[in-house]
């Protein structure tokens, strides 16, 4: 196939949940002739949309994982990257955003710009993704695309202009008016596949003129040629489109399309919009970090002959085995190439190379720059960079937050036990914020993540994809312990009865610091011989693993040793380790230890009328309101709330705001637990320990 990079588009479909994103993806595939029947998301026929390829997503009607699908529209090749729409999975969203060159921002014509649209748009802005807007569901009662356009301007600060006007609305939606060509477009035949162009209906003529003028005024800002031609009345469609494209690519203009994916209206015109106004891979600046040069920024060139740089942005374990979705930024990717995984520092050979439709795949022998392909059987984690030609680059590393919530899981039966390890191994590779470990004391498997829902989804996936049923404990907040003042220790470990003895004395002090842990040796005159100094460090490191208040790791402590004693025969590595642990424990309680808890930055967005309820909810949860931003109808409250108070929050928020408010949260910092709460935690811990000892 002849390859023309200017005819390639990598796009994402970003949207608020329930604005019909999956239906839209499905229709796009349909019109590009990749699939032959149209299914509904929550399909009555039980088949479901092909982009949501996980059963769980099907059941919940939401899309959790992103899949990339290649379609052809006219002479263009479009890679559609389906992005998850739920707030708890923002790591996934952000990961897919990195590989996009442009996006369709889908909005519901009734709901308009909702809080999640704001979150999604903020992410697009952060990654500088040019976008076009699509006002979906124009067939719904209460549809008002012009209102949505105003909201795009007011709430998102986007310079949004109508590209189309609806012909009829709600159940009378017949088609759209193309404001560039000044034609009415009707979608007829089964599935709306036949496009009929006609004159604009008389009663819409003046509106069409008005909005075209608005559009042209805005577009003229980006092209002197158009501005002049417009004054003389000689503007052409090409000129207008070129100017709008320029505005869109520079993120200074957002063209607004409309239609109804469900009723098969406006999808083909939207696809034309994608090809006309969104960038091809060469028009996007991509930056890599050179690991050999202290992460110096390197601009990548979308050139076939340059050394390969590619990003593995998504792993999938399906019926075909392990697949790694890769975006090629520079150079090409051929079967048999040897590439270097710069994170794992491992070389590997490219085996089978495929291109994915969600349910079908096509073997290919080469991937070109800008393209998205999938590799088979590559051992890697998502987010890894693959380089050729001796390069050692990393695509800008993404910030991965520490998990804040723990959940103990245990398999229900033997078969599940076998599968569990496999599943966990896979999930931890896919998602850097999902981790797991075996607690050495209880021998329980603990999974860790960013929130309740985050972990719930993985437990569900284990059941569905691996037939692994697990019992879960109560979600547990990842507390920490810390000292609040300096305290001295002077501890002697002595065991000199029978056999080889043990002897070591360690003296010094603990003090609070910002960093997690530090060890300082200020021993003078060899009170502890050099060979045993590392033993002391080791002992302290062991001691901070588990605090004596509630058994959580201790952070923010510096242990300094300044004196000690040894015995020429009985001192040993282990004796000094034990002495250091003893010394630490001795000083720890004197150093007024406190319990720290994860504090989340919570943003709640909703209609202004519920502001009082939102304030109340935060205050009830030991939260601090940091700020509140409001306009006439809409309010956003930013607050800091302890994670332990956020369990079940989504349900409570929904019920106290009639489902109209939404929230997102991310880890902010560790903060001190108030005394009353600390006392309860300590009592619970003691009770648990007693129970275990029995």
């Amino acid at each position: 196939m002849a390859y023309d990079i200017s005819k390639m588009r990598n796009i994402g479909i970003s949207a608020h949940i329930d604005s019909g994103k999956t239906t839209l993806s499905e229709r796009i595939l349909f019109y590009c002739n990749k699939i032959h029947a149209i299914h509904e998301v929550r399909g009555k026929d039980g088949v479901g949309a092909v982009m949501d390829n996980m059963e769980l997503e099907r059941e919940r009607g939401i899309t959790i994982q992103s899949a990339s699908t290649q379609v052809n529209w006219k002479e263009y090749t479009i890679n559609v990257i389906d992005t998850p729409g739920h707030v708890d999975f923002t790591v996934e969203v952000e990961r897919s955003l990195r590989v996009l060159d442009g996006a369709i921002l889908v909005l519901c014509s009734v709901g308009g710009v909702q809080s999640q649209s704001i979150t999604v748009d903020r992410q697009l802005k952060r990654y500088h993704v040019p976008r076009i807007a699509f006002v979906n569901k124009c067939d719904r009662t209460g549809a008002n695309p012009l209102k949505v356009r105003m909201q795009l301007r007011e709430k998102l600060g986007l310079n949004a202009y109508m590209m189309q006007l609806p012909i009829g609305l709600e159940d009378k939606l017949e088609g759209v008016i193309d404001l560039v060509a000044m034609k009415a477009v009707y979608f007829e035949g089964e599935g709306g596949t036949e496009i009929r162009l006609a004159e604009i209906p008389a009663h819409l003529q003046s509106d069409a003129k008005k909005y075209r003028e608005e559009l042209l005024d805005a577009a003229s800002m980006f092209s002197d040629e158009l501005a002049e031609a417009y004054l003389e009345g000689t503007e052409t469609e090409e000129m207008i489109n070129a100017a709008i494209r320029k505005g869109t690519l520079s993120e200074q203009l957002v063209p607004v399309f409309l239609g109804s994916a469900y009723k098969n209206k406006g999808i083909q015109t939207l696809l034309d919009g994608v090809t006309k106004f969104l960038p091809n891979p060469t028009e996007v600046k991509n930056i890599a970090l050179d690991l050999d040069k202290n992460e110096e920024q390197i601009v990548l060139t979308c050139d076939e002959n340059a050394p390969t740089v590619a990003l593995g942005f998504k792993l999938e374990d399906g019926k075909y085995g392990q697949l790694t979705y890769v975006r090629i930024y520079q150079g090409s990717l051929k079967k048999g190439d040897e590439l270097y995984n710069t994170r794992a520092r491992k070389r590997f050979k490219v085996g089978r190379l495929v291109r994915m439709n969600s349910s079908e795949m096509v073997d290919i022998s080469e991937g070109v720059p800008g393209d998205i392909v999938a590799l088979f059987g590559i051992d890697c984690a998502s987010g890894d960079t693959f380089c050729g030609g001796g390069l050692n680059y990393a695509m800008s590393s993404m910030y991965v937050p520490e998990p804040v919530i723990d959940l103990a899981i245990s398999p229900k039966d033997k078969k599940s036990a076998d599968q569990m390890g496999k599943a966990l191994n896979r999930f931890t590779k896919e998602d850097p914020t999902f981790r797991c470990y075996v607690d050495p004391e209880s021998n329980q498997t603990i999974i860790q993540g960013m929130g309740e829902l985050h972990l719930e989804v993985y437990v569900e996936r284990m059941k569905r994809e691996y037939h692994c049923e697990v019992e879960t404990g109560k979600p547990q907040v990842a507390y920490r312990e810390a000292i609040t003042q300096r305290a001295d220790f002077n501890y002697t470990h002595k065991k000199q009865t029978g056999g080889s003895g043990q002897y070591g004395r360690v003296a010094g002090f603990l003090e609070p610091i910002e960093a997690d842990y530090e060890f300082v040796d200020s021993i003078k005159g060899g009170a502890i011989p050099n060979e045993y100094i590392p033993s002391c460090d080791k002992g302290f490191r062991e001691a901070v693993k588990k605090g004596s208040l509630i058994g959580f790791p201790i952070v923010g402590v510096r242990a300094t040793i300044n004196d000690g004693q040894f015995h020429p025969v009985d001192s040993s590595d282990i004796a000094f380790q034990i002495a250091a642990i003893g010394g630490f424990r001795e000083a720890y309680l004197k150093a007024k230890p406190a319990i720290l808890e994860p504090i989340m930055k919570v943003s709640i967005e909703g209609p202004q009328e519920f502001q009082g309820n939102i304030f109340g909810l935060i205050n009830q949860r030991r939260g601090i309101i940091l700020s509140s931003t409001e306009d006439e109808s809409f309010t956003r409250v930013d607050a800091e709330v302890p994670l332990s108070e956020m369990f079940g929050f989504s349900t409570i928020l929904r019920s106290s705001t009639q489902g109209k408010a939404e929230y997102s949260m991310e880890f902010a910092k560790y903060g001190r637990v108030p005394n009353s709460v600390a006392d309860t935690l300590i009592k619970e811990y003691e009770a648990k320990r007693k129970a275990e000892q029995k």
Partner: protein
Amino acid sequence: MVKQDLIEKSAVRNFEKSLGGGIKAGEIGVIASKKGLGKTSILVQLGIDKLLQGSSVVHVSFNQQADHVITWYEDIFNELAKKKNLDKPAEVKNELVRKRIVLNFNQDAVKTDQVIKTIRALAEGGSIPEAIIIDGFNFENADADSISGIKKFAKEMNLVVWYSANLDTAEKGLPSVLLPFADDLDIVLYLDPKADCISIKVLKEHQRTDYATDLKLDVKSLLIAEK
């Protein structure tokens, strides 16, 4: 220096003394000047002073995003803490943050009634403010009853209220944009740029009018200068 000293030795003490004790609960003060002379800086210093004393402060901003306002507080607090060599600054700062709420309103869309409603909602939720700082309010387009509304609210809730007002030109006496509200304003200050400092003039202070003070702002840090 410990927190208590920071309060007692604060330049705000002298500021209040020069203004006949400053404004009391239920009163409104205004700092007026041209752009960029330090109105926000003074407001934030007054806010921090209240916070240090353990009062809750609501900072209302019409022209700056909440994040920017928070940065203002951070910067001025750090500056003060450094200058006075404050003990455990991180701890003190944490205490302040707990007592401060920033509200950001869209000037064109939001009327004073809505501001009052929001503060009431906060109070009902348990965050009862003792001082309100209102920055970037547009007096020129303000409804006639907006300041009297705030005044009534301030009296009812025992609030201290400080406004900033933007002036385009220097005028003799009370600026014309403030005239319609003069009865409700207890103190009006004017920032007058001089060669080496910005001096603070009193246009109105309760019953007194038009007198000079020795109060000034350091041009570099925009902090209220100490004696």
